[in-house]
Each structure stands twice: as structure tokens, then as C-alpha cells.
């Protein structure tokens, strides 16, 4: 187990490094940079351009240096010999947001934790909803319920989430009087955490969680159902039934346990999906999570801000995959001992 863990860790670190390089290349790619467009804008408005400050920023962030140096600077900060001076993503310095005129860490603060909360809640939602439905569908294959759930699943896959978000938001407002947009009632914003604030968060959170989780749920039901069906048709199930095991016990004891693997294994593919969904949904619902800020940052070439977000999302997924791999290894000895995955 320890060997497996170390092995996975060693795979994870280069993965993150490659991703960081990709991310940096992408946010660097648009011609020009934020400072240039800022100068142009200020000049067009006839304002005095604060050349000193811009030169300072340009120098501090090395925008006048070649690409690879900028990358190294962004990733590892500046070094004086072996002495680390400042900056660097790996030391937790996310850089400077030119648009907001403050360090990226201050801009994104709450957004990150709320993103994590929403993502986790969505994963839980996907599990809780898809498990009973999948088991029911598989044990009642080609029954009426199976058809209905399959149909609903297809609709869930095909409906763009932003539209669902809009419609649900509208109905929540009309039916329950939930305030539109945001994750909190206006009076709780910027307040310390309290029970009331938590309740307000819960009240607002079900719509985004539902909307973000729905496509994933549809996929999960499909996979779990297929897995369970495969398992149910195997000989040992027939043997068990022939020997008179009670149906429920027969279901729970082996087939269900084996077919539960995708629950853990699919976090790897579920998380990117959920995060993709949350970007669109949060823009529509103006949630204070990563989506809207990322979009704005990409539009205005605020590269460090955009880069931090992309890095954060990718990091979250990689971490999710790592955790799911570990959990899977604990659950399934076939993987732990390297005798071929069951994915």
C-alpha cells in the first residue's frame, strides 16, 4: 500500500508541473499583455499614464523577460543563489492581479473555498441520487421504472446546464422567494459565519448543486447500472440463487459491492465535469465562485488571476483523482497488487 501511495505521488507531481506549464503557455498566448491594454486605455481617455508604476510592475513580474523565464518566475519565484526571495506558485504566492490592483490571493479568497464546498456537495449529490436509482434500474431491467429513469437520464445529459439553472432560479424565486443570484441572502454577505448564514447558504445552494450535478448523475447511473447488470448475469449469482439465498442478501453481498467501484473510480472523470459545469452555472447565477472571475480575467488578459484559477481547478481534479485512486486501492485488492485495473 505504501509503495502504491509513493508511486502515485511521483506520478502526480510531474503531472501538475506539465499542467502548470500548459496553463502558463495558454494564458501567455494572447498577443500583448494586460499592461499594454491598460496603457492604451488610459491614453485614449487622455489620462496621465503612470509609467513608473507600470515599469515597476513589468519589472517585478518579469513581463519583459523571455517566456521560459517568466514561467520559472511564476512557478518558483525569484531566487538569490539558493536563497528563496519571493513569489512562486509553489510557495503560495499566486501573483498580482493587474485588474483588481491587488494580490491574486486577496481577490480569490472566498471563491476558492466556496468552489470546493460546491464541488464536494455536487459529488455527494451525484452519489446519493444515482445509487438507489441505478440499483433499482438494474434489478428491474426493462421495467417501466427503468425506462423512465433512462429517459430522464438522457434528458439530463442533453440539457445545457445554464438553461436549467435559469429556469430553476426563476421558479425558486417565484415559489420560495429565494433571492436571485449569489449564494447568500444580501444581509449575510461579508458577515462572519453564523447559523443564519449557514442556513441561508443551504437555501441557495441546492439549485447550483442540482444543476451542476445532474449531467454527472445521468452518466453515473448509466455506468453503475451497466456494471451491476454485468455482475448480475454472472454464474455465482445464479448459483447463489439456486441455493436459495434471499434475493436482497444475494444482491448486497457480492454484486453490489463489486459494481460500486465506479463510484470511487469515476471521481476522476466526475470532477472535471462538475467543475466545467460550475463555470457556466456560476456565470448564469452570478455565484461568488470561480466561474465569473475566471471569465472576466480571461477576457481582460489578467494573466496571473486566470492562471491561478486554471491551476486551481486542474489541481483540484488531480488531487481528486489521487484520492480516488488511493480509495480504490484500499477497496479493491486487485488494484493494490497491480493485477490489472478494473476500470
Amino acid at each position: 500500500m505504501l509503495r502504491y501511495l509513493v508511486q502515485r505521488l511521483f506520478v502526480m507531481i510531474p503531472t501538475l508541473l506539465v499542467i502548470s506549464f500548459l496553463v502558463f503557455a495558454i494564458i501567455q498566448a494572447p498577443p500583448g499583455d494586460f499592461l499594454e491594454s491598460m496603457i492604451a486605455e488610459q491614453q485614449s481617455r487622455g489620462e496621465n499614464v503612470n509609467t513608473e508604476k507600470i515599469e515597476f510592475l513589468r519589472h517585478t513580474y518579469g513581463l519583459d523577460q523571455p517566456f521560459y523565464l517568466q514561467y520559472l518566475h511564476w512557478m518558483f519565484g525569484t531566487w538569490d543563489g539558493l536563497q528563496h526571495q519571493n513569489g512562486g506558485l509553489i510557495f503560495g504566492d499566486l501573483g498580482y492581479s493587474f485588474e483588481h490592483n491587488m494580490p491574486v490571493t486577496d481577490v480569490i479568497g472566498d471563491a476558492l473555498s466556496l468552489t470546493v464546498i460546491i464541488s464536494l456537495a455536487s459529488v455527494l449529490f451525484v452519489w446519493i441520487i444515482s445509487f438507489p436509482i441505478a440499483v433499482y434500474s438494474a434489478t428491474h431491467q426493462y421495467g417501466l421504472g427503468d425506462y423512465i429513469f433512462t429517459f430522464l437520464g438522457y434528458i439530463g445529459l442533453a440539457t445545457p446546464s445554464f438553461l436549467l439553472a435559469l429556469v430553476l432560479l426563476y421558479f425558486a424565486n417565484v415559489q420560495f422567494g429565494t433571492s436571485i443570484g449569489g449564494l447568500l441572502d444580501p444581509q449575510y454577505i461579508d458577515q462572519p459565519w453564523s447559523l443564519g448564514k449557514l442556513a441561508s447558504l443551504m437555501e441557495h445552494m441546492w439549485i447550483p448543486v442540482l444543476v451542476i450535478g445532474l449531467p454527472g448523475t445521468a452518466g453515473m447511473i448509466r455506468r453503475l447500472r451497466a456494471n451491476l447488470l454485468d455482475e448480475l448475469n454472472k454464474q455465482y449469482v445464479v448459483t447463489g440463487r439456486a441455493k436459495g439465498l434471499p434475493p436482497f442478501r444475494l444482491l448486497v453481498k457480492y454484486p453490489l459491492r463489486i459494481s460500486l467501484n465506479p463510484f470511487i473510480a469515476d471521481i476522476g472523470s466526475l470532477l472535471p465535469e462538475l467543475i466545467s459545469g460550475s463555470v457556466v452555472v456560476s456565470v448564469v447565477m452570478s455565484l461568488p465562485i470561480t466561474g465569473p472571475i475566471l471569465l472576466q480575467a480571461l477576457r481582460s488578459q489578467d494573466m496571473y488571476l486566470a492562471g491561478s484559477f486554471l491551476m486551481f481547478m486542474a489541481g483540484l481534479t488531480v488531487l481528486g483523482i489521487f484520492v480516488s485512486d488511493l480509495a480504490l486501492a484500499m477497496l479493491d485488492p486487485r488494484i493494490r497488487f497491480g493485477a490489472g485495473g478494473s476500470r
Partner: protein
Amino acid sequence: MIEMNADPQPLKHFVCERPFDPYSVEVVSPEQEKLYLASQWRMMWLRFKKHRLAVVASIVLAVMYTAILFVEFLSPYNLHSRNVDSIFAPPQRVHLFDKGEFIGPFVYAYDYRLDMETLKRVYTPNLEKPQPIRFLCRGDSYKFWGLIEGQTHLFCPPNGGTLFLLGSDRLGRDMFSRILYGMRISLTIGLIGVSVSFALGMLFGGLAGYYGGWVDDLVQRAIEILRSIPHLPLWLALAAILPVNWSPLLVYFGITIILGLIDWTGLARAVRSRLLSLREEDFCVAAELMGASPGRIIFRHLMPSFMSHLIASATLAIPGMILGETALSFLGLGIRPPIVSWGVLLNEAQNIQVVALYPWLMMPIVPVIIVVLAFNFMGDGLRDAADPYK
């Protein structure tokens, strides 16, 4: 207790009196013979035909793809023709009977007034003014595919009236026509995007599966990394790279390529796993021993045996691309006006007021759902048919 002193004589050997033809098992009916002799593709077709939903879905898609050839002719208005008098007009219903009298398909003209209290535009059908729809008529002039001038439409608004089957938008443009024009972009974007990812997937999957070893490892790692970055933010970031001064047509191609660039991983995996199992087959070893080049073995011997699977996976990849484009354009980083796709149209339905006041602006979602479902069903059918011998 069983009586033990029963008659000890054995049973007489049973022989059936009926005539027996030992070759009867091997006689095949003409239908069976046809099936046995059928080529691989024919068997797939037979298998596919059994999947009703897939057949219906393919017909729907075929109709839609044919329709995009004749968009200019089918739509009553042009893409950009504005009707300043009817802004945010709700859908007009087509009627056949006016006061119990049959007068063919017609619509009632709208009476328009501005509600001075809510500042809402109120349209009420004027039941006194039935206006018959014209067919095969002269309407807005257009350039068919930007080449041939024309004026004939399948149906046009009544003389002096309007025809908004799905309502109109904030500039008084007909939603129905715009959805038809948007179909041309939204449907082709999936096809072009999939061809890009198909090519990439075959190339990388082929290399990984055929050579194995470190090539395989490299490709596998690359796939894992690409898959672990959430697609939408990546698409957004890449779309933000496209220069602002590009023409909308260039942006369109840029977006399709971006969609394809990220999406090839699934196909590459499919190719790789099939190749890995196929390259151990005898016919492959034989070809190798006879000195065939790797390219020839891959494309001449291996490709045909799993082309069907590839087509099925590609079909299942298209809806993701269509949804991706829709989301990108919806967020304003995808296709740019004046080119119109369903996502661009939905961009106008971005806020809650639209849902409350002008719900018909969300209509473009209906074709999106239909197309995505149809591709999913067709893909399922193709996947089942891909292995007709099972």
C-alpha cells in the same frame, strides 16, 4: 419401500420409427443463407435497423442536415432583417379556421401597445384581421450560400403583416429564421470538430497501440493530463486567445479546432485498446512477416476491423462538442455575431428577466436538446451494431 423383486429384464432399446435425415441440421432456409453470406457491413445494417430509436434518430438528423443546405429558402425572414414595429413579439399561432370558416393557414395580426405602468410591450392578436400565410413567395432577397441571388421562400409573412412562429427578439428579428440559420453553424461545428479529434485520436491512439513501450507510456500520460484539466475552462482559455480582429468566419474555424484539440483523448483511448488486442492476431503477424510497413499494417489491415467502433465513438463525441460550442458562445467567448449559432442566440437569454418576460428567447434550446439526444441514440445504435457477430 420400493418393491425389489420387480421384473429384472432391461428396458427394450427405443428406436424412433420416423425417417431420419442426418443432414437436416445443415440445411439452411434462404433467409438464413442470406444472413450467413452477408458482408460485415450488411450485417451491421441489419443489426442497426433493429434499434428503432436509433433509426428514428438518424432520420431526424438526416432531415436536419439536409435542411441546412436550404436554410435561405426555408426561413421566412433573413438572418438580419429587423422589424422595428414588433420588438419582443410573442410567438404567433398558425390557425386554419376563422370564425368556423376554413381559409387555410393564417395568423392574426398583432395589436401593439406599451403598458405605461409596467413599461411592458403588450401584443394582443387582432381577431378581426386574419392574414393568410403566403407560400413559395417572394420575400427578403438573399444570397444562397453567399453566391446565388434569390428571393423565393418556402413561406413568407402575409402581405403587410408579420409571421413570428417563435416570436421575435430585441431587434424584432424572427426567432424561427434565426434558429434555422443557427442550425447551419451549430450542426457543422460538431462535424468539423469531430473530424479534427478523429484525426488526432487515430494518429496518437494508433502510435500508442501499435508501438507500445515508451510511445504508449508517453501518449497515455499526455491523455491523462489532458483529461484531468476540466474541459470548459480550458476551452474558455483557448478561445480567449483567438485575436479580437479575426473575422467571424475565422473565429468559427478557430473554435472548431479548439473543440477538436481537447476532445481527441477518448477516441485515442478507443483506438489504442482495440489495436493492442488486434496486433496479436495472426493476420497481423503474417503481414509483418511478409514485410509490410507499419503504416500499411495499421491502415490496411487493422483499421477496417475496428472502423465501425470508431465511427460509433465519434458519433457519441459530437453532442459533447455541440454542447461545448453552445456553452462557449453563451458565455460570449465562442462564435461571434454576425455569425449566428444556437449558443449565440441563447446568449440573449442570459438573465432571469428573459425567463420571466420573454421565454420564447430560450427556444433555441429545444433544437439543441433534440440534436444531442438524436446523436446519442444514433451512437448507441451504431455501437451495438459495430459488433454484429456477437
